[in-house]
């Protein structure tokens, strides 16, 4: 294992200290329990947005804290959900009197820890709503599984809801918008290489030189099937086909296409994928009116990509375009 770390047990705290040093004007970082808030939290009268999850997916979620996006992020250990005490402390720290929306990716650990935290926060008089993001079409059969996973759609939900909260929508309306984004976004990923969790010290699974993991999750957990490596255009087709079929996307839909790196795949390859994915969407009659390309929800150093397609309505488009000032996303501010 070659990693730019000092000790596996210090990875999260040292990275947080680095974020605090790099973005003092944007972020405040608390330790024990660990959480990140925007520098001006709590914002009086504004619905606060809080998300969290295991570390190792950077910039999600801490990199999305700031004006126009999240009020707080709770990082767990690498690939491990945060704990209720962290989430509770962060919830109280950012509540500006208008309530707190928890945006939770659908993983058993995340859901259980956020549920416990929301119960505790309500006991202390904080209004909390939770929305679970489950946009991963790789999981086909939710009857016999923990349900679809939350992946790339989470980034889009956090941006759009952040814009809405900044515009003054109340807690119920922001939660409703968040559910709407989740209902209209579909994602699918593929891994070219596994990744290594620092404290595990070895890759979480193995892939042959000519193999890829199709339908991979963001924790190095294997996907639905292992197939032979293909050219980029073929992979883009294989990712787009189940996404387009699932919503289903229709001719005339306006959409946002998000091509994400799982950490190890460079931008040059993402754009090759984007080119083909946009072509496929166009052939389907779907008009791509917004895009996001880059490493935004990663799986440590895993090579691979995930595609997310969000059907936009007027509100989503407006709040997507609204100003955002965070370490990882910044425009219009």
């Amino acid at each position: 294992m070659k990693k730019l770390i000092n000790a596996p047990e210090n990875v999260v705290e040292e990275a947080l200290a680095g974020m605090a040093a790099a973005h003092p004007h944007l972020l405040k970082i608390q330790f024990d329990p660990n959480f990140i808030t925007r520098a001006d939290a709590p914002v009086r009268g504004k619905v606060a947005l809080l998300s969290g999850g295991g570390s190792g997916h950077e910039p999600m979620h801490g990199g999305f804290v700031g004006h126009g996006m999240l009020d707080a992020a709770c990082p767990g250990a690498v690939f491990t959900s945060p704990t209720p005490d962290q989430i509770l402390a962060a919830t109280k720290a950012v509540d500006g009197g208008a309530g707190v929306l928890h945006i939770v990716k659908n993983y058993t650990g995340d859901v259980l820890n956020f549920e416990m935290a929301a119960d505790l926060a309500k006991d202390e008089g904080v209004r909390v709503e939770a929305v679970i993001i489950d946009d991963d079409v790789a999981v086909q059969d939710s009857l016999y599984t923990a349900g679809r996973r939350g992946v790339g759609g989470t980034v889009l939900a956090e941006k759009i809801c952040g814009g809405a909260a900044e515009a003054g929508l109340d807690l119920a309306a922001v939660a409703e918008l968040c559910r709407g984004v989740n209902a209209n976004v579909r994602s699918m990923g593929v891994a070219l290489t596994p990744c290594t969790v620092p404290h595990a010290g070895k890759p979480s699974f193995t892939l042959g030189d000519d193999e890829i993991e199709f339908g991979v999750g963001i924790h190095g957990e294997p996907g639905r099937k292992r197939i032979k490596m293909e050219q980029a255009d073929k992979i883009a087709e294989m990712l787009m086909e189940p996404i387009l079929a699932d919503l289903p996307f229709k001719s005339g839909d306006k959409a946002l296409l998000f091509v994400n790196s799982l950490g190890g795949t460079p931008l040059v390859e993402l754009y090759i994928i984007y080119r083909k994915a946009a072509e496929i969407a166009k052939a389907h009659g779907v008009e791509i009116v917004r895009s996001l390309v880059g490493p935004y929800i990663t799986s440590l150093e895993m090579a691979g990509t995930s595609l997310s397609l969000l059907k936009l309505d007027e509100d989503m488009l407006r709040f997507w375009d609204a100003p955002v000032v965070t370490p990882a996303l910044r425009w219009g501010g």
Partner: protein
Amino acid sequence: MSELLDVPVLSSWLKRADELIAARQAYLSDLDAAIGDGDHGANLVRGFHAVNAKLGTPADPAALFKTVGMTLIGTVGGASGPLYGSMFVEMGKAAAGKPTLDVAAWAEVLAAGVNGIAMRGKALPGEKTMLDALTPAVAAARAAATLPAALGAAAEAARQGAEATVPMVARKGRASYLGERSAGHADPGATSAALLLAALAEAAA
């Protein structure tokens, strides 16, 4: 071996659990890497180290269980933190007012804890989870006439229950995403649950 579980024995259980889990950390993480995300061993080591650091000298078993539960909830993360945390919190409620636990009381305290896991995780036996080790352990504890027999039988039932998860297809947690590919590996949660009950049998012996 005594016929009663008291605070010193329960404290030595948690110490032994910490040792056993630390010794098997790599094994637990390997099981988790096969069907989950590979963090189960490290998460439990962190949790049980914290438990032993925080335990002090609780007034009675109920206070001990509550401290264990709240510490696990606050330190483990993942799904196992709230699940094991809920188990010990519910055990604390069931043990309220009892300075010591005899065989019948222990069986009911364990049953309450296991029910806590089932409620929090919304799981049933047969779904390749901790419950597949713990549910047979409760039955074994309830059927035993003496405390030593109950602890030994519960540990053995949990061990067999964990082994029985090998061919199962997971329906809960991250392993469920593998579908049929989750068969052929023991469930890490069932395996760590069996270690916990083995630690109790050893600590009380």
